[in-house]
């Protein structure tokens, strides 16, 4: 840069010490953008430890692997870093999981747009999505951070609640969006919501005595049998989703919630490990 004017070295030193008056500070700061020669005057005035410390932190950040998309998204939402990492390590909060769930919902939606029986399939399947998600969110064999979690000074129940809430929220949003495309936007578009809560809590409650995956499978089988039986007996496929069914689901939510709060310490003992 060919600038003829250069800052007075004494003024630069006073600037570094915060003692230069405002007008000359403005002038100097504007000049520093354009003049490498005057910028270089500042380097020897810096504390070498500060320069070295900041550089070592830059190297560390540059060497660290980039967080996964889900983790970056969570951080962007303002979640603390450790919680974002914890949630991003949840198998059922990965993009691949969402893709699989989206595909399954898509097929169910196609069926539901076809005929009434298809609608029953959609309604029966939708509440099982958070169940599968929660089962895949913790437990040995699936959770990649399981071994770390066992040794971590965090209550397993707390970890479970954080992850289950996130999985449940993500599943409900996804399913809710797909349900908007159902042929008729009446009560059937939300009829799966309460069963979803009930089945998820039931799975967690059963997990206090059994491993998460078998618990989820058991709950899911029970659910499918119940929906089919009610449908067959009443002659109406969606009978299980009428008022009585919804009230029953509410009951399950209450009972399962009670069991969970009573037996929360069971997760810290990890009964299945």
């Amino acid at each position, binding site marked *: 840069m060919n600038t003829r004017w250069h800052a007075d070295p004494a003024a630069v030193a006073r600037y570094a010490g915060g003692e230069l008056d405002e007008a000359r500070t403005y002038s100097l700061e504007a000049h520093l*953008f354009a003049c490498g020669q005057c910028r270089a005057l500042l380097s020897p*005035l810096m504390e070498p430890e500060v320069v070295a410390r900041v550089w070592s932190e830059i190297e560390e950040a540059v060497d660290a692997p980039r967080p996964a998309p889900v983790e970056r998204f969570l951080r962007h939402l303002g979640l603390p870093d450790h919680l974002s990492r914890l949630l991003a390590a949840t198998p059922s909060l990965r993009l691949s999981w969402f893709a699989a769930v989206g595909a399954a919902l898509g097929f169910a939606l196609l069926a539901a747009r076809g005929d009434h029986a298809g609608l029953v399939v959609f309604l029966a399947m939708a509440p099982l999505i958070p169940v599968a998600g929660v089962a895949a969110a913790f437990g040995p064999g699936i959770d990649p951070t399981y071994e770390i979690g066992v040794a971590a000074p965090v209550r397993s129940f707390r970890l479970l609640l954080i992850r289950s809430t996130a999985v449940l929220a993500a599943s409900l949003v996804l399913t809710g969006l797909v349900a908007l495309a159902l042929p008729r936007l009446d009560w059937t578009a939300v009829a799966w919501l309460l069963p979803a809560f009930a089945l998820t809590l039931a799975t967690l409650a059963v997990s206090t005595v059994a491993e998460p995956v078998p618990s989820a499978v058991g709950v899911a089988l029970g659910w499918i049998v119940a929906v089919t039986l009610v449908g067959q007996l009443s002659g109406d496929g969606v009978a299980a989703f009428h008022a009585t069914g919804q009230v029953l689901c509410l009951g399950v939510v209450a009972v399962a919630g009670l069991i969970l709060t009573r037996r929360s310490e069971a997760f810290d003992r990890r009964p299945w490990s």
Partner: protein
Amino acid sequence: MNRSAHAIRQMSVKARDSERSDEVLLEAVAHRERRALRALYERHAPWLLLRLSRRCSDTTIVEEVVQDTFVAVWRKPRSYAGTGTVPAWIWGIGIRRLIDQLRHRSATVRRFPFPTRIEPSAEEEVLLGVEYGDLAGALNRLSPELRAVLQATALDGLTMREAGRLLGIPTGTVKTRLMRARAELREALA
């Protein structure tokens, strides 16, 4: 290779880095050359640290912002459009990171470390008069609040909204203070 030969080679490598222009170094950073980032850091971290610490009194925040800035330079060297100078581009990243950092902190962080007016000596007053006309005196006589707004917009290149976020005041206040600052300067120069 013996040690002195290695040392000589290291020195020549360093010398070559310091000869490369900012633009060339940025291009090398885009090719994942760590040494080029180091050279940019050595060249630009000192003034960035100083300039930011005149806008935020918390050295921990300032150091974090400088760190973030150079990590951003490493990740996206191509976002330098080549319009302004490289230092101006680096400053743009740095000051906006500082605004982000301050937004997440409580308002108790003292944003301006030098709120008191630093009076130039009588001799300097004369020199300043020679150098800048009455403008310098008028700038120095502005209240710290008015000066801060002028500095954030005119010198730091921030929009009024960004300036408001940096200073912790509403955008409307930035606007009125800027108008008052201009009026006072105009009056002093008239």
